[in-house]
């Protein structure tokens, strides 16, 4: 606070000038901050940028799952969407407990941005790659995947009737466990690996997404790079994701990663948040930005997300082997109403 000029303004500043008690407290805080800053000081050493860059850039680059989605850069909300999409990949993967998983219902799992970042630690124990990259097609006037798009029978007042179709091809992501990488990660912590199930080296977890189709209501041409202009309403339908594993069960993999030396509390917490219900699709909900409630949609359990930033709301549910979502800058009650009236 002592180093933040904006922290002492207006009435607070005047009060501070005249109140001995507050001045004493402020001095204690400022002294603490100064002494900590001084004690944390460390001599800088010149760094050899060229050598460091050579070492770093020589490291093997895996195809990034999150960014292979190729979402437009330059917009914080979309960067968040990309991060949550990456979390969804892992959450879907770790929701499975046997060798095969296809969800029939949904449940929200709260995550924080630090959880999302922690998930990148999985790279220490194997590789997460697209074995079949998703292809997006946006801008058509009709769906192109062959999947029947849901029909909105009742639009709330004020939502544009201009519809743009988007589709996503089937995509497959694979996590391959590597005993060598796990060993190296353990060695970096000065520890040896815990006992591993037989056959775990090279065990794979394969997650299949889509195909999916979506309808976007609203004039998309108004969006610019500078402003986040979410479409008024998006209605999407996707074949429910499937997870399969080879060599060991998903529960085995989850247990092994949880027991790795050096695995962060964040990653452990994120993985443990996903229980072994093998019929449930977990929807990662970033707690900093949204809250979730359970709702009944089309006669089945669904998850309603309210956006704390005031940007909008969403409803997600699984029915008949498909995942449905209604989202946009509409009231939550409208989103639920649209969902219940989808044909």
């Amino acid at each position: 606070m002592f180093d933040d000029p904006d922290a002492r303004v207006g009435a607070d500043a005047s009060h501070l000038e005249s109140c001995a008690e507050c001045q004493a407290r402020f001095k204690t805080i400022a002294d603490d901050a100064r002494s900590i800053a001084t004690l944390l000081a460390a001599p800088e050493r010149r760094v050899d940028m060229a050598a460091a860059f050579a070492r770093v850039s020589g490291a093997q680059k895996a195809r990034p799952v999150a960014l292979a989605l190729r979402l437009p850069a330059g917009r914080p909300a979309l960067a968040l969407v990309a991060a949550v999409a990456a979390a969804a990949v892992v959450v879907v993967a770790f929701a499975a407990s046997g060798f095969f998983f296809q969800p029939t219902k949904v449940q929200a799992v709260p995550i924080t941005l630090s959880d999302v970042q922690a998930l990148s630690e999985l790279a220490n124990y194997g590789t997460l790659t697209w074995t079949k990259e998703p292809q997006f097609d946006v801008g058509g006037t009709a769906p192109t995947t062959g999947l029947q798009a849901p029909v909105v029978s009742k639009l709330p007042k004020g939502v544009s009737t201009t519809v743009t179709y988007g589709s996503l091809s089937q995509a497959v992501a694979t996590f391959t466990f590597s005993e060598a990488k796990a060993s190296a990660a353990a060695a970096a912590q000065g520890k040896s690996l815990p006992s591993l199930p037989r056959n775990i080296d090279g065990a794979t977890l394969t997650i299949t997404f889509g195909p999916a189709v979506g309808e976007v209501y609203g004039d998309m041409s108004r969006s610019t790079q500078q402003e986040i202009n979410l479409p008024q309403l998006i209605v999407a339908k996707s074949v429910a994701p499937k997870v399969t594993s080879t060599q060991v069960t998903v529960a085995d993999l989850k247990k092994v990663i949880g027991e790795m030396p050096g695995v962060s509390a964040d990653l452990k917490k994120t993985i443990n948040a996903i229980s072994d219900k093998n019929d449930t699709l977990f929807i990662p909900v970033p707690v900093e930005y949204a809250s979730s409630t359970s709702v009944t949609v089309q006669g089945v359990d669904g998850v309603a997300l309210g956006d704390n930033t005031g940007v909008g709301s969403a409803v997600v549910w699984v029915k008949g082997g498909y995942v449905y979502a209604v989202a946009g800058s509409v009231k939550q009650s409208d989103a639920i109403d649209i969902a219940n009236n989808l044909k």
Partner: protein
Amino acid sequence: MTAARSEAEAFEALFTAEYRRVVGIANRVLADAHEAEDVAQEVFMDFHRLHSATADYAPAWLHRAAAHSSLNRLRGARRRQKREIAQALEEDDRTVDPQRQAEIEEDRRRLREGLARLAPRPAAVLVLRASGLSYAEVAQALGVGVGQIGTLLRRAEETLRKEVDRGSSH
């Protein structure tokens, strides 16, 4: 090919812009420039493996990862503290008289022990701010509102002070 080249160029630009600062964050925690460089390089390698250098969140991710990775090392390596800080002091405080130097060394050792006992977020707030990041940059790195940083910092300083006092009374 163009996309691959521009990604490589973007990574180099990101590295050039952020490497020194990432080393600086790790060095605040570890007080060991060599180990700080190790942490920084690991952080960049992790980032490079999984993320695009054009991502908006790249600097914030690197700062946060630098703080957390170096704090993790600190927690696992308290036994090495004395030697490391002694080395750092050798370069930093050559002109200080021996008794004063020993006191500073002891204070710094206690501070880093206290830091290692703090919860991840308050520890990261302190380290990032002490490394010269602005309130806005610290907020971005930790995914919290910039308005919360002052309060988080103050609480973290208070907790660290108590941790240091607790450590010295043992």
